[in-house]
């Protein structure tokens, strides 16, 4: 735990950035941008340091960024006019992995001891491998260093459901639990998150060209790596789903502009303009031919892991690859889970992430029809895509730990067989195909003096954890919507010249084939609520010619009863310097529990309970559960980050 190293190379990079900040001396009179001496070439950019401090953790971000944006106008080329090349390049170094490496770097984690309710092996503090011997961990599985207990940063662990150890160091420092190709970043890939095999330092690079037709229609073609934005609402992604999101940057709290993961795509758009019915009419086709990329959820041992998914997946892959000790898993009686239990490899956990290869069939297609009718702006959207969030599908061939185990009179490994077991918590990760149709509209209500924005979408193909199913997931159609209202109002006594902005939004989600049932030991099924709502309220004011603004963003997850308030100040010191200071504070009712398939009895008769569902040796969810692993879906993204209160300071120099 005490290997906090100061690496020379990244620190040099940090100081180099700082030096760049100090060394730039553009005239105050000049509007910030680089004078290229070429009217057809625009280049601008910024350097930025974002330093965040997290309660009880210390430094949680020391991100230094250099971003360059440029446009080169090429003029007319063949049938095309207004041809341009547009690029955005970003280089980021996050020093938190060096400056607070005890928490987030190669010194993170340590030895862990699980805490069974009943110490079947003689102690309440069980190291990996110290459970009852239902299997043997590998040497790596037994190595008790660089570990945390799953969920320990979010809740107390003792007696609240399954306990698993999870490696927390970067994957090149400790490869245990790292899935191949998914959440497997090395220390340098975490430090320099834009530099990876997908060339994320190219935020955008695309060619744009226009054909102005005699009919008055404008055809706009754009090809390259880019962000494409649909929809009309902020903060929520109902239609704005063409690009996946990098939640590892700052959970759900950064601007999408910075967190969308650009993809290689082509967009073709016909801007028909006005006709006898519509004031404006456009048709757009989007073809995303990039190799599929899921949203980046943050891997184990990093500061921002939305829903704690990164550590869950790593603990489960550790369990599959090296074996693991799961505390409060086996029971003293058939109906409880109280004893730490050792499993060998290939029994439980996540085997692999099935990352779709590039193929024409795996590309994504979207179409949008957009227009203005009278005073209403609207769009109709359809998108054939893949889920950007992982689905855990059980039903992979696994070993029966009981046949041949010491508990059944033999030695583990002698007679194990690899076959399908229903209700067994061994998974592969998939990203299923999803089809979305939706629409949006905006309207200004004169009576309310309020601009109203609405988005809605229906999807087919999404998958949800569901332990009542043999393969522990079920597919459901989902309806999502957002309604937003923006109202500007003056408080002259505070600000004579500038109105305050009050923006309210509510997001709703309805899972159409929702499944929840009452079983012998509790409720089971899909942990996500059938209907859930999240509301946000933004209040913002500006002073000093908009150079100083204060805003407070609040969000409340009605189902999770989780609340976050984020006050922030934004000061444009001059044309070049900008300082932002904010906080992010959460409140919630505490961690929720959910059935976790501890009592699913996949290996009858060894795992039978007295629950009726196990009569006759059948497998099935009996409803026993705890906080881990599925309580996170009840807590939601705000609730799971309950212990991530932060002070955030960002200083930017733009040029």
């Amino acid at each position: 735990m005490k290997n906090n190293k100061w690496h020379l190379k990244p620190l040099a990079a940090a100081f180099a950035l700082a030096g760049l900040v100090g060394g730039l001396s553009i005239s105050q009179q000049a509007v910030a941008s680089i004078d290229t001496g070429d009217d057809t070439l625009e280049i601008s950019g910024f350097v930025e340091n974002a330093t965040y401090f997290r309660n009880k953790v210390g430094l949680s971000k020391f991100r230094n960024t250099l971003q360059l944006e440029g446009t080169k106008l090429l003029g007319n080329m063949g049938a095309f006019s207004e041809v341009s090349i547009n690029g955005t390049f970003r280089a980021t170094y996050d020093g938190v992995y060096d400056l607070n490496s005890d928490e987030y770097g190669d010194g993170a984690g340590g030895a862990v001891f699980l805490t069974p309710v009943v110490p079947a092996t003689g102690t309440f503090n069980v190291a990996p491998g110290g459970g009852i011997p239902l299997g043997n961990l590998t040497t790596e599985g037994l190595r008790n260093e660089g570990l945390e207990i799953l969920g320990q940063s979010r809740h107390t662990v003792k007696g609240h459901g399954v306990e698993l150890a999870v490696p927390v160091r970067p994957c090149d420092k400790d490869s245990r639990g790292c899935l191949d190709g998914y959440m497997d970043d090395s220390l340098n890939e975490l430090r320099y998150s834009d530099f990876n095999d997908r060339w994320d330092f190219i935020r955008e690079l695309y060619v744009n060209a226009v054909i102005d037709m005699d009919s008055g229609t404008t055809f706009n073609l754009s090809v390259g790596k880019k962000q494409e934005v649909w929809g009309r609402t902020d903060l929520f992604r109902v239609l704005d789903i063409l690009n996946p999101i990098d939640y590892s940057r700052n959970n759900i709290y950064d601007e999408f502009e910075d967190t969308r993961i650009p993809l290689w795509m082509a967009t073709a758009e016909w801007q028909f303009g006005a006709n006898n019915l519509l004031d404006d009419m456009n048709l757009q086709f989007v073809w995303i031919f990039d190799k599929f990329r899921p949203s980046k959820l943050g891997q184990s041992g990093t500061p921002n892991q939305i829903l704690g998914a990164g550590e869950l997946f790593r603990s489960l892959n550790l369990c599959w690859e090296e074996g693991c000790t799961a505390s409060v898993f086996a029971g003293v009686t058939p109906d409880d889970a109280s004893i730490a239990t050792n499993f060998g490899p290939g029994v439980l956990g996540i085997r692999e992430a099935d990352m779709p290869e590039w193929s024409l069939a795996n590309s994504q297609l979207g179409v949008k029809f957009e227009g203005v009718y009278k005073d209403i702006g609207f769009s109709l959207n359809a998108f054939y895509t893949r889920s950007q969030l992982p689905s855990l599908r059980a039903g992979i061939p696994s070993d029966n730990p009981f046949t041949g185990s010491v508990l059944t009179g033999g030695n583990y490994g002698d007679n194990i067989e690899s076959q399908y077991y229903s209700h067994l918590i061994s998974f592969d990760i998939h990203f299923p195909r999803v089809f979305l149709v939706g629409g949006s509209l905006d309207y200004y209500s004169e009576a309310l003096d309020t601009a109203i924005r609405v988005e809605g979408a229906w999807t087919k193909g999404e998958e949800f954890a569901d332990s009542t199913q043999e393969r522990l997931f079920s597919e459901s159609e989902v309806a999502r919507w957002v309604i937003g209202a923006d109202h500007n109002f003056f408080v002259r006594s505070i600000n004579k010249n500038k109105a305050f902005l009050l923006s309210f939004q509510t997001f709703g989600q309805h899972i159409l084939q929702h499944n929840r049932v009452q079983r012998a030991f509790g409720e089971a099924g899909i942990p996500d609520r059938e209907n859930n709502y999240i509301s946000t309220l933004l209040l913002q004011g500006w002073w000093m010619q908009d150079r100083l603004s204060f805003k407070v963003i609040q969000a409340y997850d009605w189902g999770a009863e989780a609340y976050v308030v984020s006050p922030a100040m934004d000061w444009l010191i001059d044309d070049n310097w900008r300082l932002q200071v904010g906080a992010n504070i959460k409140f919630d009712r505490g961690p929720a529990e959910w059935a976790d398939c501890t009592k699913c009895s996949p290996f009858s008769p060894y795992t039978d309970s007295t629950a009726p569902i196990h009569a006759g040796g059948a497998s099935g969810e009996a409803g026993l559960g705890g906080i881990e692993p599925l309580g996170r879906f009840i807590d939601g993204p705000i609730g799971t980050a309950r212990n991530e209160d932060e002070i955030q300071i960002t200083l930017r120099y733009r040029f």
Partner: protein
Amino acid sequence: MKKFTKGLLGAALLSVAASASAVTDIDIENSFKPYTKGFPTVEGVVAGLVINKDNVDKYASVFDKGMIKHIKDGWVDITVGEPMDFVLNQRYIDATKAGAKNVKLGEKTGQIEGYMAGRAFPMEPSLDDPRAGEKLAWNFQYGYNWGDSAAISPFYWAYKNMNTGKIERNIKFNFYFMNFAHRVSQDPVPEVSPNPGGLFRAIYLNVAEPFDVKNTQLLIHRSKNDLKRDNSWLYLGFQRRVRRLATGQTTDSFLGSDLMIEDFEGYNGRVSDMNWTYKGTRTMLMPFYDASKQERTDKYKEADGYKYSTYHGKGGCFPNVTYSLRKVYVVESVPVDSNHPVGKRVHYMDAQTFTLPRTVTFDRQGKYWKSWSIGQAHPDHHLPINKGSGVSIDDSFGIMDIQSMHCTTGQFKGIVDENLVKKKQFSVQYMRSFGK
């Protein structure tokens, strides 16, 4: 009986005010060419005269009270330039001759009937006409302004501390204007088709610099029906999203400047948003000038060698231009909306061009709030392409918030060139395309 007579008289006056006028071509010639018989004169006010705090009392009649105070306080010296005739585009004058006789006010403020194109009410206003102010407002609203379409590209704004002269922020814009209806000089005439939304005019702008507001775009659609609210959209570059603007935001500080969207071009709102009162006709010094004879700067390099207006005086807030004697209609506008931040504006409306070179704004408590000047350059001595356009070129502006001692200045490169302005620019989708 007396009461009845008075009521009858009032009704008769209103009837006269609202009816189509018996306007003649001579009235129209007088309206567009008020200086045919010579420029107005005021004793001692001749080209080359510098009016400063020592002699301003002598020439007080040619300034508004606000400007007198600024000169007295030593904030600015005004140099008198040669008078110039700003004859508007002949097609606009012809359209006035063809249509003005059919134009009359409707029952309510904001209603106008029979208007096709040109100056709506070219007859000399009368203090006896209770709706004279409204007619003048229509003349401004349907003024030749930037013609049927034009661009200000680029358009540099500077936010300044008046006390220190420090420039706090610079913004580089591109502005585009297009009339969808009542067009006179550029095809299609008189209206763009199709025009299902019944638009009269649209303004589109984008921000080129600085980085934090780059690609911010604003689109305003004004309907032919003045009683219908403007539709406005804002594209925020950092969100890559178009947001519909609430009307209240047009009376908000625009991007932190000292202007509201409603202040654009002197007044950028509906006629029906205000109660208009004609207060009289005056001879005043107004910033109408020959740009080629002004001090200009090449601070912002232009390939064509164009040089921008300069600023002087307190905080560098006053356009450094010469003023010339002009025939001016004084018109007051009072917002209909009781929540409007402005209590009253006094517009000094140029009688020949119906531009608003000078507007003084008072807050709801009646205190002097903003001093707003827009320098008008003669088109024949500006960019070559503007020569003969018959557009009074907005060339320099300074708007001062007297209460907070802050100002915003603007340096225009106004180009009357229909090739720079495309219909597609005035659509919401264009904002999305441009903003990528």
